[in-house]
């Protein structure tokens, strides 16, 4: 059983990323279930997706059960730490969008993760996506880097296949180039 959480803010492509991850597992022959919040919350709010590999379960990951937490945004990752445990793998995008009305600092959040988790990975998806001129594609950038690092066990070919299944042809072409570049350069 693999439980994955993807946390971010509206507009980061969280839901699309969750779709692609589901497709990746399904292509390996697993049954998947996932859940996400859509609507009002997307307007500048928190967005969280739960992915559960296995079928006879509900859509929400129970507290402490997540094997992997992927944070497209750091403070959103921190918001969901009740879902993980000390042994969970944490992947953080090096991106911090401060919740207004807070004096949270990026360093503070990083420190928290460093102190509490041994399997912590910080990934520069936001900057890399910007460098590659696709600032809105930090989600797929993140995925490519996660797989390249071996944090999720999928090959480049598998990523491309899943993208082709999930995206429109036009979107696929753009993201294909992105993934190729990431595998070449980073």
């Amino acid at each position, binding site marked *: 059983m693999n439980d994955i959480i993807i946390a971010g803010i509206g507009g980061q492509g969280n839901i699309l990323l969750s779709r692609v991850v589901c497709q990746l597992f399904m292509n390996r022959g697993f049954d998947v279930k996932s*859940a996400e*919040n*859509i609507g009002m919350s997307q307007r500048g709010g*928190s967005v969280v997706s739960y992915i559960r590999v296995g079928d006879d379960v509900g859509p929400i990951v129970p507290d402490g059960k997540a094997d992997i937490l992927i944070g497209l945004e750091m*403070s959103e990752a*921190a918001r969901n730490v009740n879902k993980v*445990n000390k042994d969970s793998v944490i992947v953080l995008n090096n991106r911090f*969008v401060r919740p207004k009305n807070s004096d949270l600092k990026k360093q503070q959040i990083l420190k928290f993760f460093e102190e509490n988790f041994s399997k912590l990975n910080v990934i520069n998806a936001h900057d890399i996506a910007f460098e590659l001129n696709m600032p809105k594609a930090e989600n797929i950038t993140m995925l490519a880097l996660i797989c390249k690092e071996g944090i999720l066990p999928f090959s480049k070919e598998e990523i491309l296949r899943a993208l082709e299944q999930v995206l429109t042809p036009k979107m696929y072409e753009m993201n294909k180039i992105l993934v190729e570049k990431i595998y070449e350069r980073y």
Partner: protein
Amino acid sequence: MKKVLMGNEAVAYSLFINGVNVAVGYPGTPSTEVIETLKNFQDDDFYVEWSTNEKVALEIAAGASLSGARSVATMKQVGLNVAADPLLSLSVVGVEGGLIVFVADDPGPHSSQTEQDTRNFARFCNLPVFDPSSPKEAFELIKPAFEISEKYKLPVLFRMTTRVCHSNQSIEFEFKREKRKIKGFEKKPDWVILPALSYIKHMELEQKLQDMKKELSAYNKVEGRGKIGIVTGGVSYFYVKEAIKGFEDLFSILKITVAHPLDEGFILEFAKDKEMLIFIEELDPVLEEEVKLILFENGRIISTYGKRNGYVPFAGELDVDKVKYIFYKVLSDKRFLAKNTFTDVLQIPKRQAQFCAGCPHRSSFLIVKNATKDKDIIFTGDIGCYTLGFAKPITTTDTCLCMGASITMAQGLNIADSSKRVIAFIGDSTFFHSGITGLVNSYYNRHNITICILDNLTTGMTGFQPHPGTGKKIYGEEGRKVSIESIVKGIGVERILLIDPYSDFTENVDKVREFLNDEELGVIVFRRECANLKSRESYFKINKNCSKCRACLKVTGCPAIDEDENGNIFIDSTLCNGCGLCKNFCRYSAIEKVMVK
């Protein structure tokens, strides 16, 4: 084929496969994706549209059904309130072709003004209601829902909740459409509901409910043989299954898939050897009340735990951990207590929902706010993205009730205290949904309010559906375009002002201020395409002239503007949509445009 489908998509696929002929709805989270998915399918005997509101949608579906077509009307739970009028009559009149009323409930709520429970509506209208637990089950239940509807000649409610609508599951199916012949409308006195007939039909309806109980009971199931009975349904069924993992022997589960009507025999059989019953359900205690009534009527005394005695919360949604906690409380068994690893984590404050960066509504609200600075004014709001006009720092929305109510509540506020000016805000889609009648009332009865129609040329909150003002139909093909200004003029309103919220801010403020001087009924149309519909041409950045005065940040509240640890103001170049609004509030020429390559 095997595909990952969202609950709503699974419903759409199954509707199409099972030969639905007419699919209509009004967008509303979490129901929207049913029609959004159906629009990807085409066939010569299949029609799909976005209707102007839920009442319109259900009446179209009813008309189609009387002709023998399989039809579906989709909406969210509050939309069902709008469609309640035709639905209650339809349960008495009956249908011909299978008619499914798909309603998405929103425990939590995540994206709604109420947590109402459509299973209660089913009791109220005397209709059967399916309540699937997962996308896969939803997929499987569409076929019987049509069949029950056709067999008993009644509409069938198909109710899902957010966590079923918006969860995804891999589903294996054959994508092949069932072809049915539509027999056409047959004239019958039955189709004209008159009081005398209504009485007779009501008796028939009660009989039909009795008749269908046994058949519907086949969709409910019992699992396990433990002495502690759990009665559950919908997504809660899975929470229960996960919560009792490792303790399965203690429990047996009664999973209710058709929540109304319930078959007494089946319930009594389940309860026969149970020591107690625990009711795990979201929203209203529907199963709890129905089951308890059956037990009472049959002289069966048993201890029960649910919402009625405070063991299960009335508000909010459930999850595995909450269900475990309920078991812990009922059974005083510590093994059900969750171990939380991180108890005193960083406190991350809730992210306030806000207008997107570059949202034209932010500008429209600020124009009105600035134009009315020195006046005591009540601002009534409505349902849509622009409800966010209440949030800081815009704070230009004082009320929000339901679709269309900004215009009508404004009139009431004005009647009650004529010394107060009232300005109503309403969106384009909502104006067509239920704003027009309020405007007619205000013109007719001489209620002198100001109405701001915020036209962003789409239905923004639910994911950019077209509506009459866009002139585009569901596939993007040409419909007829309805002009908001022509409607307003056609009603008789003479004072209309058209504003582009992206054009010169100060000029716009002056125009609006002047317009408000005349205290007659007036309509201002703010028109600018939603920021999410266009690819951006530019973004803005802060240069070294910045004095750190924070004016841009404080006035606009744009999510793209923030300050770093050293108090330096910056614009997040990924978020900024290039609207240029913030530039108006910088006295140091520190905000400059960058064109996108």
